[in-house]
Every structure is written in structure tokens, then in C-alpha cells.
């Protein structure tokens, strides 16, 4: 017993206690996800009693599988569509804003910098209700896909600005000045030097916005119009108390895979981009700085 304790508490060895604790947490957090994925392959209607392996809820069943059920498919498509638009709109605007906020020195610079954090700290439900009110009464935006995109873009931009601004501050103004000194116009300096240097951060923003959008429930739910504009989180929320089948698990699994492959892609692109980046910056680091 004593020897075991000494071995465990060995000051020169690995900190085993911390390692064990970490692994315990990993297992704790991953087990539910794995169980959910496993039951999407259940050969029966139950989501808790194993009845053998089957792919019927994925594509086998002609009516209730993910592939064939129009409601499930619609929700998946809507989720991906919103994520796509959110990325396409929020990232360019966020990059522009970040550029403006770091390069612009004048009155109003500081308050705007603080206001940028506003969407991050506002409770999402408050934001959703407020958006609902202004969209309905002030801007007359019809509920549905447009309103959902607008809502998601509204809060996504803050994240993009924070990621890009952090990177811009660490890059500093010298590279642009060097480019201008060597004969590049302002626009040329941006395109030839700043943009390539910002690429990892822009990529990180894309991933973060994708994850935010796919994950979002509150704002998306408030802005949805009908069943056609349901996303996967909304669908899962609504059917969880009703007669859910393992097909729901399958949809959820698709979401997990989508997120995982995005992170994997992010990692690969980061490795590729890191070849030519100054040390100390990483796309994952940029993401980790926020989420």
C-alpha cells in the first residue's frame, strides 16, 4: 500500500493524479454522446434498449429514416443552410469591423470596442426577445430563414471581431508599412500581405461561426416561422417528449460528425498554414481564445 502511494506521489514522475482526473472527465463527457450515436444504429424503436444493429434509422427505413423523413432532412438542411449563410455574411463584416476598430483612432473608438462585447454578455434569451420585437414592429422582417440569418449574424459578428482583432494586434502595423514602403498601395498591402497573414484567424472565425450557428437554439427558435424553418436543435427539443425514434439520434449524430470534421479540417488547414506563419500564433489558439 505504502509503495503504491509512493509510486503515485512520486515527485519526479508524471503527475498521475491529474492524468487520471483528466481521463475521468473525458469519459464522463464523451459517454453520453457515444451512447446516443450507438442507439442511432438500434434495430428497434427504442432509444434505451438495445435490439441489435441496423442502419434502418439512417437510410434503411423508407419513411422514418434520416434520409427519407422530410422533416428530419429538412431540419438538417435548414441547420446547414443557416450555418453557411451565417459564415458568409458574419465573417466578412467582422473582418471589416475588426480592421476598422484596430486601425481607426478617434472619438468613439473605445465605446465601440466595448459595445462589441455586448452581444457576448447579453443573455441570449433577452437578445432573442429584443430581436423578435424590433424585427416584427420596427424593421418588419418576415420570420423565417431571413430573420434567422439576421439574428445569427447579429451575435456571430462579435466573435469574429474578437478573433480577428486579437490577431491584428499581434501582427502589428509593420508588415503593412513595409509593403507600402516597397511600393504597394493601401489596397495592395491589404491584399498581398495583411490578408494572407490574417488567413488563419479568418479560418478560425469561419469554424467558430459554424459551430455557433449549428448549436444555436434560442435565437433561431424565436426567428423561425414554421416547420420548414426548423433546425435540428429545435426539432430535437420538440420531439424529445413525444414519440422519438432512433432516427433523432441519427440526426444528432450527423451534427456531431459535422462538428468533428470541421474541427479536423480546421486542424489540417492550421497545420498547412502554420508552415509559413510566425511562431506563436495558431488558428486553434485563436479559437481557444474565445470558446
Amino acid at each position, binding site marked *: 500500500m505504502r509503495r503504491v502511494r509512493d509510486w503515485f506521489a512520486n515527485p519526479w514522475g508524471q503527475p498521475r493524479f491529474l492524468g487520471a482526473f483528466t481521463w475521468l472527465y473525458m469519459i464522463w463527457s464523451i459517454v453520453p454522446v457515444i451512447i446516443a450515436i450507438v442507439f442511432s444504429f438500434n434495430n428497434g424503436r427504442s432509444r434505451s434498449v438495445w435490439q441489435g444493429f441496423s442502419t434502418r434509422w439512417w437510410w434503411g427505413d423508407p419513411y422514418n429514416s434520416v434520409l427519407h423523413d422530410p422533416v428530419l432532412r429538412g431540419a438538417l438542411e435548414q441547420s446547414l443552410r443557416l450555418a453557411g449563410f451565417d459564415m458568409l455574411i458574419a465573417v466578412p463584416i467582422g473582418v471589416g469591423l475588426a480592421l476598422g476598430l484596430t486601425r481607426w483612432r478617434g472619438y468613439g473608438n473605445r465605446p465601440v470596442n466595448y459595445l462589441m462585447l455586448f452581444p457576448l454578455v447579453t443573455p441570449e434569451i433577452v437578445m432573442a426577445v429584443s430581436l423578435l420585437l424590433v424585427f416584427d414592429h420596427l424593421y418588419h422582417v418576415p420570420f423565417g430563414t431571413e430573420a434567422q440569418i439576421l439574428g445569427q449574424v447579429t451575435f456571430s459578428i462579435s466573435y469574429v471581431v474578437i478573433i480577428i482583432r486579437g490577431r491584428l494586434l499581434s501582427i*502589428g502595423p*509593420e*508588415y503593412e*508599412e*513595409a*509593403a*507600402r*514602403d*516597397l*511600393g*504597394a*498601395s493601401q489596397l*495592395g498591402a491589404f491584399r*498581398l*500581405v495583411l490578408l*494572407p*497573414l490574417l488567413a488563419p484567424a479568418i479560418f478560425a472565425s469561419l469554424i467558430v461561426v459554424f459551430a455557433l450557428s449549428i448549436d444555436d437554439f434560442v435565437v433561431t427558435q424565436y426567428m423561425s416561422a414554421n416547420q420548414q424553418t426548423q433546425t435540428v436543435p429545435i426539432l430535437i427539443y420538440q420531439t424529445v417528449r413525444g414519440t422519438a425514434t432512433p432516427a433523432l439520434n441519427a440526426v444528432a449524430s450527423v451534427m456531431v460528425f459535422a462538428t468533428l470534421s470541421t474541427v479536423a479540417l480546421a486542424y489540417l488547414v492550421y497545420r498547412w498554414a502554420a*508552415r*509559413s*506563419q*510566425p*511562431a506563436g500564433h495558431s488558428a486553434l489558439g485563436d479559437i481557444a481564445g474565445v470558446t
Partner: protein
Amino acid sequence: MKTGAVDLVQLRKDFGEVTAVDGIEIAIEAGEFFSLLGPSGCGKTTTLRLIAGFERPTGGKILLDGVDMAATPPHRRKVNTVFQSYALFPHLDVFDNVAFGLRRAHVKKKETRERVTRVLEAVQLGDYGKRKPAQLSGGQQQRVALARALVLEPAVLLLDEPLGALDAKLRKALQIELKSIQERFGITFVYVTHDQEEALTMSDRIAVMSGGHVEQIATPQTMYDEPETVFVADFLGVSNLMQVTAEGPEGVACRVKVGAFELAAGCGELGVRGETHVVIRPERVVIEPYEAAGANRVPGMVERVVYNGASEQLVIRLATGTVVQALSVRDGTPEKWTQGTAVQAYLPAEALRVLPPSPTGSAAPATPEEAPEADEAIEVGAG
């Protein structure tokens, strides 16, 4: 005619309330190695950035070969910069970094390749074209930064503390290389540094700046031997500054009173009367036995002996309370002076320089009682 003459006329730059450059007048000749020397915050880097075009002057003119270019944006000026951080583009390899400027100028592909190859060979980086900046050492990055600017054949090359990030040995080697490149290319170099030794080694002329003003413009020799202000005397090398009262009838010689002692001062602003400073370099102070008698001698005591290798630095506390440093070459004679010895410090009149009274006191140096660091003395003693 050589090109690359830069004239700064009443050049001024304010940042809000703060005046970084306060109406300076500098005329830099074509093909000259000109250094802007001063402590941090003296306005030297702002001056360089004004010439480069990164800052817009609040007032005054910047003439390049007689043409005012204050309104010309940086990418249209025949002026290139070597940045302190090098600012090599990390996503481009060495070749593309050097070719960047030529491509912006739409130089033909073949010519671009030739010129880049030639300049890379000139800085001894011929085989490094395919490397990324991150794969180079500090000294190599510095050369790439230099090549990138030189390839455009600018009229003026601006260098902002280009050797600041390198270690001492490499810095010495690159100082010599920079100077020889400057002579070979015949380009005007405007070199910003806070390192007085660097400025003295390389420059044709130096402008010492302080608080946005130019204190003195002179050749290195003149700057060292004949400082015109208290600030210059104190900033360049080790100086013994003494607060004195200048007296005597108007004439050639000037008598200065240090405490109870009266000395003859033979050079500098001999017309000055009243409260002022005199300066004498440590290597001009002669230490004699206490029994020695004669004019311009002040008794004192050896307070500290600092061994510097080739020379020995003696810190003498004079009877007036002032601390004076003396430098004696170790030529093999047995060491005469040990700590606590009573001596006479002979301050020859021809080495005792009278400075004009400092106008405000903002440019006042560290108090003369404060002995400068020993390692600083080594550099000056050796050079």
C-alpha cells in the same frame, strides 16, 4: 550628379499634445552615411518615419533632391526602409520577399530574377532564396531586409535600429558590412540608433537629438572631441562634467572655479561667464602623485580601480566632492594607484572644455557625481 540629398526644413510633428519633432533643420548630403542618435523618445524614429512617409508632418518640408515630398504617399517615394523588426513577410520565401518591390513596380520577370539574385549575392544569401524568413537566423533576416530595400535602388535608405535585435558580436560584423555596402552602392543612408558606439563607428556625420530638438550635427570625431552642449558631452562616451563658475576678463583664456579651486580652461565656449559646465574626457585626465604641484591640479583620493583589460579606470573623488574618472592604459608599468591613495588630478587646460549653460535644464545630464557604468567605459576606452 549624385541623388539622395535630404533636406528637413523646420520639420515638425505633433501627436496630440505631445511634440515629437520640434522644428528640426537637417541637411543630409547625397551618398552620406548619416546617423540620428539619441535616447529613446528623442524623436529620431519619428523623424525617420516622416521621411519614409508613414507619418504626416504637422509643419515644415521634407525635400528629396530639392523636391518637397511631404504630400507624396510612402509607396511613391524613392525612399526605402529597413525596419527594426525587419517586417519580412512570413508567408513569402526570401526570393519573393526581395522581389516584392520589383513586382509592384512591374519590372519584367527576367530582370526581376536577375536583380534579386544579384542583390542576394551581395548580402551573401545567394543560396537562401527558397527559405522562409522563419528558417533564417537573426543576422540572415537582417540581410534579407536590407536586400529587399536595396534591390529597388532607392535614393535614400532609411534604417531604424537595424542591428538592435542582434547579439554584440554579430552587430560588430554587420556594422562593418553595412558600411561597406553603403560605400559600394553609393546610397544615402539615414541610420537611427541609440547606440553611440554604432553611430561613431559607421557614420560620416551624426545628428544628436534630444526632446525633439537637434543638439548638434557633426562628424564623429568632432562630436566626440568638441561637444557643443552638455547633453552631447554626456550622451557620447564617458564624460567628466563639472558644474563651475566661469570668471575672468574677456579674452582668450577662461578661468573656471570648481569649489575653492581655480582652473584654466582652454577650449569650448570661452566667452561664457557665470554658472556653467566644463567637460573633460577620462583619457585626458592625468593622475599624478599627491606631491606633484602646478596649475590645473586638484587633489583627490582614488575611490575605485576598475580593471578593463586593456585599460584601467580610476574613479577619483576630488577635494571639491566631485567624482572624476580617469583612464590609464596598462602599458606594463606596475600599478601605482590603489584604492585609498591620495593623488593629484591634473586637468590640462587644452582638454578642459567650457560648455554653454544649458538653456532650460530639460536637457540636463545625469549629475556628474553619478559615475557611469563601468562597461560603458570599456567601449569608449577601446574605441
